Every structure is written in C-alpha cells, then in structure tokens.
C-alpha cells in the first residue's frame, strides 16, 4: 500500500452532516414506501459489510478479494439453522452464524495472513472461490440453486417479519458496528493495525507480533461481515453461492474506496452510493435497440475505471478538503 493519507479524524462539520444522515435514516421509513425502505435497509446491510472491509483495507492495509466468503457463510448458517416450517430464534442463531463466519475467517486467515502484498490478494481470492465451489458443487449444501429461508428469524420481543421492525433492527446494528469500530480504531489494538498499514517492518522491529494482530483483524472483520450476511439472508429469505464470489468482494472494496478509506463513515457513504449507482444503471432505459439497463455491468465497469484513475481519496476525502480548507496531508491528530 502506498502512503495514502487517511482521514481518521473527521472534521467537525462533516460529523454534523453524518449525524444528520443518521437522523434521516431513522426518519426515512415514515416518508418512503415499503419498496424504498427495503432498498435502504439493504444499503445499511451493505454498509456493515463495507465497514468490515474497511477494517481490513482502510485501517490495516490488507486487500482481501475474498471477504464476501464470510458474508455468505453466515447467510448459509442461518439457512441451515432455519427449519422448513417455522422461524429460528434470532438471539442464538445470529451469534451462531457470526461465529461460523469468524471461525472460517480464523482458519482461512491462518493460511492467508502469512502472505504479503500481491500474494495476499491472490490467495484471499482463491480461498473464497474454494468456499464458493464448495457450496456450488454440493447439492447437500444447496448447490448452485441456493437455499430458501422460509421464515424471518424470531426475535421474540418484536417481529422481524414486520418491515419497520426489520429496518430499525438493521439501523441499530449499523449504528452499533459503527460506534464499536470507531472506538476500536483509537484503542491500542486499532493503533497497532494502523501502524501495520503504514510500516509493518518497523512494527515488527518494535517488537509487535504483527501476524497475530493481522489474524485478529481478519477474524474480527470476518465476524462483522457475517453479521451483515445474516441480516442480508434474513431480508431476502434466500442464499446462493453468488453471495461469496469475488465480484461481491470487489464491490465492497469499491464501496470503501468510493466513500473514503479508514474511518468507517466513508464505508457507509460508499455503500449507499455504490448500491444506488447499481440500481441507477440497472434501471436505464432502452435507447433505440440498445438495452442500456441490461448492460449495467459496462457502466459500472467504466465508473470503476474512472474513479480509480482520477479520484482515489473518495467522496469523503473530497468533501473534507472542501470543508476544512486545510492542507490535505493530514494524519491522525491535529
């Protein structure tokens, strides 16, 4: 990773804007139709997934092209734990699913974290594809068709089948993960991860066991991706191997880049923006005999190429520069 200056501390005015954003999210279901509320709920779920990628990428500097595997595994765990004829209890199936993702991340991480640079990128991709094929090739695990989840998990105290309840539960999870990760970022553990990103060699020379720290970050990020995956599966009622492919992982990386790396708020902004863009491109009309919406991948591909070529600090970086009017080479403290 190059020494890209990361926006860790958000300027005050930006914080106010983000706070307003959270309030807007809280009020959204009252002004929007069910369809849009569901869409925003999905964006929030992707926001959690993107934050987990940001922990690896933006904070620790690990480019994992296989993070979607942990998103998918928790979804599949929910599917396996859900009986055909009734709902499964949320309060133990959620930790169990997250635990499954964390365990997978720990095991795969053990092999993968010992590699560096481009090898790391390649092997994370390869192991994720291994998980993909594991599910794709085995009918017992659902095969290429996937598995249906017939009932939303039972929260006992409230009904997740109610769209409003699901929306607010997801919003609560989003907020909880954000607050947790922001706190973690400035904890001793978080500072070590940032140090590893900036100069891992010096961290080792200072006596830090960087393998252990990276593995811990990898596992934690896997667990958080699992949380998102559980919610995603609960929302759609369906899991299939595509959830775990490298396209999903690459999208998540794109979200983090788009919004701005290293502060978790950017991940949320990026997730919302990218997901909105996907819908926008997919809904493009027919122009003459050319079905522009069908070829949405072309537009998103061009968009990705343009963003990478011209705007590597992301939306929050641009916004921060406009807002603070300070020199953009800021690090982690004023």
């Amino acid at each position, binding site marked *: 990773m190059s020494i890209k200056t990361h926006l860790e501390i958000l300027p005050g005015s930006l914080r106010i804007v983000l706070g307003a954003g959270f309030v807007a999210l809280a009020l959204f279901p009252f002004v929007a139709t069910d369809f849009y509320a569901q869409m925003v709920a999905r964006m929030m779920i992707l926001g959690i997934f993107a934050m987990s990628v940001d922990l690896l990428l933006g904070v620790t500097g690990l480019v994992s092209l296989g993070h979607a595997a942990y998103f998918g595994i928790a979804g599949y765990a929910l599917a396996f734990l859900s009986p055909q004829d009734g709902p499964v209890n949320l309060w133990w199936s959620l930790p169990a699913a997250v635990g499954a993702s964390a365990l997978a991340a720990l095991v795969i991480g053990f092999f993968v974290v010992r590699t560096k640079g481009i090898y790391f990128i390649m092997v994370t991709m390869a192991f994720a594809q291994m998980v993909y094929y594991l599910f794709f090739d085995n009918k017992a695990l659902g095969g290429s068709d996937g598995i249906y989840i017939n009932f939303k998990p039972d929260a006992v105290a409230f009904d997740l089948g109610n769209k409003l309840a699901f929306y607010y539960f997801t919003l609560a999870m989003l907020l909880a993960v954000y607050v947790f990760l922001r*706190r973690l970022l400035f904890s001793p553990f978080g500072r070590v991860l940032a140090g590893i990103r*900036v100069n891992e060699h010096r961290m080792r020379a*200072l006596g830090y066991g960087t393998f252990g720290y990276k593995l811990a970050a990898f596992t934690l990020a896997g667990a958080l991706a699992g949380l998102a995956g559980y919610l995603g599966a609960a929302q759609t009622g369906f899991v299939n191997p595509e959830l775990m492919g490298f396209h999903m992982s690459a999208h998540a990386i794109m979200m983090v880049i788009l919004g701005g790396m290293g502060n978790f708020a950017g991940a949320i902004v990026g997730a919302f923006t990218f997901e909105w863009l996907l819908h926008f491109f997919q809904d493009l009309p027919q122009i003459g005999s050319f079905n522009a919406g069908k070829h949405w991948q072309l537009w998103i591909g061009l968009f990705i190429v343009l963003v990478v070529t011209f705007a590597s600090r992301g939306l929050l970086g641009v916004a921060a520069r406009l807002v603070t009017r300070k020199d953009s080479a800021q690090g982690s403290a004023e």
Partner: protein
Amino acid sequence: MSDVLLAASNLTKRFGGLAAVDDVSIDLQLGRIHAVIGPNGAGKSTLTNLLSGDLPPTRGRVMLNGADATGRNPEQLSRAGLGRSYQKTNIFLPFTVWENVRLAAQSREPHLLAWLKLANNFRSINENAERAIELAGLAQRRNAVAGTISHGEQRQLEIAMTLATAPRVLLLDEPLAGMGSAEAERMVQLLLKIKPGHAIMLVEHDMDAVFALADRLTVMVNGKVIASGTPVDIRADAGVQAAYLGETAYE
C-alpha cells in the same frame, strides 16, 4: 568488568559467493559505546542487519543477555531487549511525532483486549513516550506530523522510538547521517546521556562523533575486522590509517 549484554562470535554472511560479513566477532558491554567504522561496502550495514535479526547469518553465533539469539527475528529480539535505529529513516510518516513514540512505547504494554479504551489514555505508556521524546529533544514538536519535520528531527524521532521500547542493547545505524553540526552535537550529547544504562553499538561515518563517543572501536574493511581496540590504539594503528583513516584525511 562490565556485563557483556550482546556477544557475536564468528558471524559470517554470504550472498552467493560473496562474503559481505566474514568471521566478525563483537561484544557490547553495558555502559559502553562500541563504534564500528569502515569505508562504504565494508559490511557495517550487513553486520547491523545480522545483529538486529533482519538477516539470518550463514555462520556464527549471537548471544543476547546470555541466551542464544542466533537467527531470531526482529520481533523476538526487540522483546528480548534489543533496539535498533535505522540508517534510512524508518518512521511512521503520516502519524504525529507523539503517536510515533507512543506506539513504540505501547509495544511494551500491548493491552490487547482493551478495545473500548482510548490508546492515548494509558498513563504508563504516555510517561515512557514522554520521557523518550524529552530525551531526544523533540518535546516542542510532539504534534507535528512526522512527514513534515526536518531530516534532523526525523533522525531524532528515529532514536526516540527506539528508546521508547526500553531496550538495554542499542544498535544505532548512522544516527548522525545528514545532520548539521548543531544537530550532530545534540545527538552526541544525547548518546552520552543514555550511555550508562545501555550497551551501544554505533555505526558511524562522522569521525568527530566517533572519537567523542566510543569506548571501543572496531574497523571493518571488505567484510572483515582489521582492527579492534580503544580509540587511541586504533588511531595509532598503521594498517587502519592506510585502509580508512587515510581516506578521511582528504575529506
């Protein structure tokens, strides 16, 4: 007789057919500065890398605090009380001076599971970092971003970080490199100040500093030790004069 904290015997490092370090032995004693000098390409950097664990030796042994430390990696050596500063400044450029040193100090007290506590709130870590920053003379600059301070200040930061890990053995790789005379003088004073509690190896080209600081001198040429002794003896050694000090007379 001072304690010998680090004893390297018959260290050899071969790259293919070339021996960059050839049968070198060196002792570091508590409260003493042992300087290593020699022309460029003499193998001083390689020797430093061998002692710091950045390179494994082809042959030879390293004893640290009486225990065998041959072939250990930098992580392990740092935890065993060895600190190394780098010739090419090896700091955390986007972090502030304070954070650089604090992070170094934190390595001694990881507080791994304190995920919800702010890193800046640990008193003993802060005290150690504060002390190291004071010693290195960087107290005024604690809030500056490391990438924006002057080269000399970065060298001071380099030392501060190494000191913050509370090592007993110090390997200093050209700490005065690129410094003006005022900064160099300050660094010399710093090294004299910390000498009592540490066993120091100093690789340096600045001969004034070397003769001001060194209790022992080892001269390396082409990977081998050609002379080792007190500064007075080395100064008088004809072989050394021919090989090395003679060159510097022209500088």
